[in-house]
């Protein structure tokens, strides 16, 4: 497989022409070096123990041609939220589908392809691109770094307050006989700025493909960033998401991840709190059915004092669905007065659904408040009986309890159209 990949990379370099000399390409080469030493995660890899993606992908997909895919036009009007009040960007098969045009211009907001940004904002690219993903050594993030050549660059300038959410629509097709896609973002929220970004993943055709995403995000001092991911692909889609968020002093970031459909989904969400007084919220909701396999790995790395992080992830698993939660909290020696909380709760609707939940706290400072808890169980029989004894049908009673379970996360969504969509999906799924 690694040989296939090396071949692929050679072809890819030829396609790049002159671009194989620029700084971006040096980052690719570094990732290639690291990747070729290890390849995709092996069976015994601790991080991928419960999600054997390496083996599955290796069997299912061809890694011999990860060359550039062409621009494949999609029909925007079929896409979820296409008429929402937002700045829209369409990314199909990892490639920006439409020109990034003037409708995307707002005061203090810069949206370019990464290629364009390389010319216009070389300093930003040099400072950040690959800087976070390469440090982490995740094989999928490296794969993305090696083969992505377009992507989205978003810069929110100092003190800008963006009036509408930025909505990145990701879709996949298999028109081009290509079934592995890399999509990539670099997002810089400068100091004092405020913005909301949504990444919405869907797929039109029920074809098998593997989409491999990386977002690198820098949130500068005192900036506010709300970040939403909606994962609603098909039950044949394999998806890996590596997201790196570096927070600077006094910044506030809230991340939301809603996973509704996908064959195998693996999310690695990494927060690095790089200075004092950062505030971080992580909300997750996954509703899995059929043979969905949903794996959320999170890291919150408290490096400095007086930061706060709070994580609430909830899952409902039906049929033979499987889910994995691994939440790491690191509190480094300098991170005194840290407040870090984590909770993962799951409801299994069948005997055949399964959950593997593992909180992992490593605390090196002594003056901290940390707590974590995870629960996995069936719906509460006592509660069900109580509701039914008042004349409420079994299915309504189940629906009410499941809604009650997810509502505290749903209530945190600050964007109406997104809230309504997720709430409505919940209604359809849970009643």
């Amino acid at each position: 497989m690694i040989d296939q990949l090396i071949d692929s990379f050679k072809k890819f370099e030829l396609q790049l022409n002159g671009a194989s000399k620029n700084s971006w390409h040096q980052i690719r080469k570094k990732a290639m070096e690291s990747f070729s030493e290890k390849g995709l995660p092996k069976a015994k890899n601790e991080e991928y123990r419960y999600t054997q993606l390496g083996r599955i992908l290796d069997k299912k997909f061809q890694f011999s041609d990860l060359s550039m895919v062409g621009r494949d036009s999609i029909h925007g009007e079929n896409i979820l939220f296409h008429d929402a009040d937002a700045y829209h960007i369409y990314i199909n098969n990892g490639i920006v589908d439409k020109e990034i045009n003037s409708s995307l211009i707002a005061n203090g907001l810069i949206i370019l392809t990464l290629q364009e940004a390389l010319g216009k904002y070389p300093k930003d690219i040099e400072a950040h691109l690959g800087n976070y993903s390469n440090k982490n050594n995740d094989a999928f993030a490296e794969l993305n770094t090696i083969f992505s050549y377009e992507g989205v660059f978003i810069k929110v300038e100092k003190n800008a307050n963006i009036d509408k959410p930025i909505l990145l629509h990701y879709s996949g097709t298999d028109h081009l006989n290509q079934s592995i896609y890399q999509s990539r973002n670099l997002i810089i929220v400068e100091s004092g700025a405020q913005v909301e970004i949504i990444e919405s993943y869907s797929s039109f055709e029920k074809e098998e493909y593997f989409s491999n995403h990386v977002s690198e995000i820098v949130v500068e001092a005192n900036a506010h960033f709300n970040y939403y991911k909606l994962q609603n692909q098909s039950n044949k889609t394999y998806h890996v998401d590596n997201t790196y968020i570096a927070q600077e002093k006094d910044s506030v970031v809230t991340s939301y991840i809603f996973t509704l459909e996908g064959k195998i989904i693996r999310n690695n969400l990494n927060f690095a709190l790089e200075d004092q007084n950062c505030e971080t919220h992580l909300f997750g909701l996954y509703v899995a059915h059929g043979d969905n396999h949903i794996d959320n790995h999170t890291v919150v790395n408290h490096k400095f004092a007086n930061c706060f992080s709070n994580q609430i992830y909830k899952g409902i698993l039906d049929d033979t669905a499987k889910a994995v939660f691994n939440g790491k909290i690191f509190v480094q020696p300098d991170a005194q007065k840290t407040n870090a909380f984590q909770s993962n709760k799951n409801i299994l609707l069948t005997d055949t659904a399964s959950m593997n939940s593992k909180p992992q706290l490593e605390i090196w400072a002594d003056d901290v408040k940390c707590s974590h808890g995870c629960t996995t169980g069936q719906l509460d029989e006592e509660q069900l009986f109580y509701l039914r004894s008042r004349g409420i049908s079994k299915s309504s009673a189940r629906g009410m309890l499941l809604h009650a379970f997810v509502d505290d996360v749903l209530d945190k969504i600050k964007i109406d159209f997104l809230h309504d969509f997720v709430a409505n999906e919940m209604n359809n799924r849970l009643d």
Partner: protein
Amino acid sequence: MLKIKNLHASVAGQQILKGINLEIKAGEVHAIMGPNGSGKSTLASVLAGREEYEVTEGEVEFLGKNILDLSPEDRAREGLFLAFQYPVEIPGVSSNNFLRTALNQIRQYKGLEPMDAVHFLKRMKEKMSLVEIDQKLINRSLNEGFSGGEKKRNEIFQMAMLEPKLAILDETDSGLDIDALRIVANGVNKLKSKDNATIVVTHYQRLLDYIVPDFVHVLYKGRIVKSGDKSLAMELEDKGYDWIKVDVDGVVS
């Protein structure tokens, strides 16, 4: 209204009810007393349809129907109501939504249109004042963080909202202070009519000063071992259960 014949029931493989016979007519109030663990709550649960209790013998007819085959919700829709000894807390479910769903599913079962918001709120207000329950409690999630007394009062409030034919109050008086007891009893009395009936399961004769029973039954070791009128409750209050235990165990063993 309710006819229980030779009812046997077991839970977790253990026989708890060992041949209960009881008949209740419209307009009547029956008190069921008895020492802890004698099977009072089990009887209430079996009537309400809790699934882990298995009926091994006997019949229960409610308003002419065999209810043992009905789901818990259908029993409620037929007009049966159980005020739980230990009401559960259901975080995230609002009292409002809960009661509206219950009321309308009962109405639907009876072929009635759903009650509109205006009438629903009117009824809420009316019944809230009847059982003197605070709006603040109703605004919270169902029973969440309620005190013991508040939970009991909420049971009576739900009963008032749903207007059942037969209400079974399982130790609704336990743990209530005199004021709360009076309010609860008052609520029950106001809802009493010649068309409905009440079973009060209690430990204490005290409640029966406020809700006057037509019949008093003593349940012991899964059987009704003694029945009488209100004076039986007085006697139990005076003498405790020991004389009954001696009576029964003497005969049985």
